[in-house]
């Protein structure tokens, strides 16, 4: 058994080496297909990072009437915190708002002076609310619309941001759905191309398969080297495509980083490198072996 296995390995490597042009062509096609497949995976992730980042920047603010008592505002905050849609709330009191305003305009003499001249603080207290999901903003907005709050709430910024939120929501949905469909489609195309390429390679060896049968080789002995070749195709194709993907991501990351407030696409890619490589190996080798298995089976019936 061990001798048979070592012979199968020897023949697989030998066939891969001696059928140089054919092996190169098969590996090249596998490489290109896997590159497309990985490219799409990476593109999907990067788009998601960017969208998540934009989503993080979105919040709605509730501005309270100047005479609204702080206790009532804190009651509103507590009731908002108890909602399942709310991720976080931040209370900014009138004094804090003034402080922030002053810092923001410290270089603007006119504004600083006019603020100093005022006796009262003209700014209202506010609550900044972040929702867990984009779709939750409308629920929160309608919650704040309730009659019990109208006496203390001056305005809710949702109505101003609703267009941006809706647009982002639809972009996100489209990217998620489109990416998923494209990925499935690409996987099927990749599988078909790889299967056909290997089938053609084995088709050109069909006479050899017949000769091996005639000399008395068992199916296992005939099939083994082809399965090994499938593994080699998948392995080399995956390694080459992950290397090229890494290079591409490394050089294009700065362009994407501009779109993200904090974080680096390259760092994100590095953290997921092995998972991605593993997926590629499973996909590449799996397809290589399965294609070889089914392509050879046809010629083992003599």
């Amino acid at each position, binding site marked *: 058994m061990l*001798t*048979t296995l070592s*012979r199968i390995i020897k023949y697989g490597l*030998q*066939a891969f080496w*001696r*059928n140089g042009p054919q092996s190169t062509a098969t590996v090249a096609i596998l490489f290109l297909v896997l590159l497309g497949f990985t490219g799409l995976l990476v593109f999907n992730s990067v788009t998601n990072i960017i969208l998540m980042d934009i989503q993080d920047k979105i919040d709605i603010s509730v501005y309270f009437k100047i005479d609204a008592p702080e206790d009532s505002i804190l009651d509103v905050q507590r009731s908002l915190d108890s909602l399942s849609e709310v991720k976080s709330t931040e209370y900014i009191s009138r004094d804090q708002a003034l402080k922030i305003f002053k810092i923001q305009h410290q270089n603007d003499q006119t504004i600083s002076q006019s603020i100093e001249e005022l006796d009262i603080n003209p700014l209202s207290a506010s609550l900044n609310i972040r929702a867990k999901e984009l779709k939750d903003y409308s629920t929160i907005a309608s919650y704040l619309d309730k009659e019990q709050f109208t006496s203390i709430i001056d305005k809710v910024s949702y109505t101003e941001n609703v267009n941006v939120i809706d647009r982002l929501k639809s972009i996100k949905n489209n990217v998620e759905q489109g990416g998923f469909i494209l990925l499935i489609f690409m996987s099927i195309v990749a599988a078909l191309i790889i299967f056909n390429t290997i089938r053609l390679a084995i088709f050109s060896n069909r*006479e*050899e398969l*017949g*000769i*091996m*049968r*005639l*000399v*008395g*080789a*068992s*199916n296992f*002995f005939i099939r083994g080297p082809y399965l090994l070749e499938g593994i080699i195709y998948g392995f080399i194709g995956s390694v080459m495509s992950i290397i090229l993907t890494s290079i591409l991501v490394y050089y294009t990351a700065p362009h994407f980083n501009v779109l993200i407030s904090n974080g680096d696409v390259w760092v994100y890619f590095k953290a997921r490198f092995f998972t991605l490589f593993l997926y590629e190996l499973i996909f590449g080798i799996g397809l290589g072996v399965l294609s070889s298995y089914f392509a050879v089976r046809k010629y083992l*019936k*003599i």
Partner: protein
Amino acid sequence: MIIFQNVTKNYKVDNHETIALNDASLHIHQKEFVSLVGKSGAGKSTIIKLLIGEERPSKGKVIIGSYNVNKLKSNELPYLRRKIGVIFQDFRLLANKTAYENVAFALEVAGRTPQEIKEFAPQALDMVGLGDKMKNFPRELSGGEKQRVAIARAMINHPDVLIADEPTGNLDPVNTSEIIKLLLKINKLGTTVLLATHNKEIVNGLNKRVISLEDGRIIRDEEEGKYILV
């Protein structure tokens, strides 16, 4: 020992039935040298395909030694084929393997050890006079040399039977006579030889048993026969 008992083989093509072999019975003893003669389509190749299990008979029984070929399962066929050496008109060598590797392959599939392979494969190539061309690929060999590699491969596992299907069809007269001499030598060493051919000169020069086929029927079976076909 080869036995055909009332063997019929039909092929169905487009609902039209052709009879390739019609109720053929024959008995070939061990160490015999038998020529199978007949025109193309007479049934020679069908007999060979039935012997090596490439086809199953529609009716009747095919027996080689201890094997009942009809009843062999697909995974048992390799064992039968290691007991039969076969050579063909088109040589059927593995194009990507050298002469040595082609011969060694037959030993490897039979599970021989590396030491045995290193010993036997060069011996077999020496026997057919190709000791100096072991490292050549088939494309670097002449027709006669390719056929000799095929013979070395066929004989390497010491088969009980050597089947030669038009082995000289692609060869010039000099190579033809050398191949026939080689087959006679192999037969003398104790292997049953079944030679399918339509080369009249070869058959008439052999003075061995001749089985003549016509339209799928055995029409003549003579010891020390001649090639007599209209």
